[in-house]
């Protein structure tokens, strides 16, 4: 039992998981992870994470898309200067449609790329402490640390009402 690097608490209720997180935070733990079958505002509030930087990907993806759409339409129109309907070669109003669509296309794909990057996906291997019940109806809190910290974490989980506490 000496090789344990973490302790998992399996909770049947979101309130108990929140209590465990708050106790961990009160004792100064920083290295823990929470698993839940669905995002819960109670958990998000207890965890109080910083605003996700995914939004920067969204912004820069969208701006790149706009620039690309207009550049594409303008550059190819200049490369093949065919006057139709007596309109200017670089005619802005129709190019707005192209710029709009590429804004959304590249913005959306960049947002997804940002999510993958920050959420650490894809992650096909095992995650220490993960339990299939966490995608069903249980909430999991996994605390990592040295033996003394783990002993304390075990106590916290039991005191918060964990249905099961185990080492990983």
């Amino acid at each position, binding site marked *: 039992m000496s090789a344990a690097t973490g302790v998992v608490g399996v*909770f*049947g*209720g*979101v*309130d108990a998981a929140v*209590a465990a997180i708050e106790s961990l935070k009160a004792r100064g733990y920083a290295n823990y*992870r*929470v*698993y*839940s*079958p*669905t*995002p*819960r505002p*109670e*958990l*998000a509030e207890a*965890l109080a*994470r910083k605003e*996700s930087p*995914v*939004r920067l990907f969204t912004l820069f993806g969208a701006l790149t898309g706009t620039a690309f759409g207009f550049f594409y*339409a303008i550059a*190819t*129109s200049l*490369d*093949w200067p*065919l006057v*139709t*309907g007596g309109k200017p070669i670089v005619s802005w109003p*129709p*190019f707005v*449609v*192209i710029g709009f*669509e*590429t804004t*959304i*296309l590249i*913005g*959306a*794909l960049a*947002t*997804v790329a*940002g*999510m993958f990057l920050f*959420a*650490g*996906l*894809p*992650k*096909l291997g095992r*995650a220490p402490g993960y339990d*299939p019940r*966490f*995608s*069903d*109806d249980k909430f999991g809190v996994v605390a990592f640390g040295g033996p003394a910290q783990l002993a304390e974490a075990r106590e916290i989980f039991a*005191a918060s*009402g964990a*249905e099961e506490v185990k080492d990983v």
Partner: protein
Amino acid sequence: MATLATPIPPAAPLHAEAPPSYADTTRDIIATLRPPGRKYYVGMAFVLVGLAFGAFCWGYQLRYGLGVTGYQPPIFWGTYITTFVFWVGIAHSGTLISAILYLFRSGWRTAVYRTAEAMTVFAVMTAGLFPILHLGRAWYAYWVFPYPNFRGVWSNFRSPLVWDVFAISTYLTVSATFLLMGLIPDVAAVRDRSLGWRQRLYSMVSFGWKGSDREWHHFGRMYLYLAGFATPLVLSVHSVVSWDFAMAIVPGWHATIFAPYFVAGAIFSGCGMVITILVPLRKAFHLERYVQVRHFESLAKVILLTASIVAYAYATEYFIAWYSGNPFERSSFYNRAFGQYWWATWIMLTCNAFIPQLLWFKKIRTSIPTLFVISIFINIGMWFERFVIIVTGLSHEYEPWQWSYYVPRWPELGILVGSFCWFSMWFLLFIKFFPAVAISEIKESLPPPVQAGGRR
């Protein structure tokens, strides 16, 4: 007064059925993925036969050319373009329900959005075939994409047909991304409950999702921004499709009302199709606890609203045709209602403007069989709306010697049937491989499990 020997039993709960628990949700929804029964295979066989017939019709058309269709000069847009616009329209309610109602925090979307979103992706996949199917030389379809080539020729970005290429391909990409992203947590739940090759497959599709706080945190933001992108996109796509017509000077097409009119019509037809699909799906998989009558009622209200907008747009079109004093517009619209295509126009008006008005009655909105029948009428009506716009517009242009009459011939109708089968095939495959109701979002809308008693 006699004293009661036993205490009065507690009154029956207000809701006959308690809301499902998290574990019920996982179990009941994953149960939809169980090996299918005979009915499924019979349905699939029908679908594949229909698809094969559609493919045969296309092969026949490729072999003998577009002469096998009912095209008569100057009508060279017929059933194919009608069906293209029909399927693009169907695709719209999916994103409306999944993105716009998400931004509005409408609780009722949760139960129906996965089905609607899958429908969107498959409908765009179906629609995207038609611009190719209606080409005489389909093997040159790639010419619409602006790619570098040695002739130095580029697409004409002032043409609405090129805007359409951009709009539809963006819509396909973004709606498929939206569907796949929403599936990630649910596929992870399925992965944890399956074995063998299925577990490996779901592991890949879920990208190894574990549901950690870090994953949910970034995922939630990503989903919000995707919804934010999808909302203007859905409005733009059908506007662009409407401009395929409105930018031309054909009487009956050249109107500024076209973009909002088409968007309302698209949402109207899409919600109709969602009902058409959900009613049998809910029955086959016993999902009554998750997809409730109130969800259908909400869909019916959206249908009633958009049907009224569409009816108003019809009235406006006729009014403007008269009020403009333009003899060509007047003639075109008179011909629409009382000319050779009167039958198509009156099918359209009956199905889209009159029948949905029944939904003012709550009894009709909450009756599933009635809603199902109305949704079929909507599907028919909206196909005819596009037929009326496209074919009557082209059949009655400026010069009387150009007037003509088009009716679809069997290869076109075969491809139309084939398109429904193509769509159904994807849908039938989808419901057996992926959860048709969003597991994690249903859980999000339920009261979370608490264990207040167990805490010290």
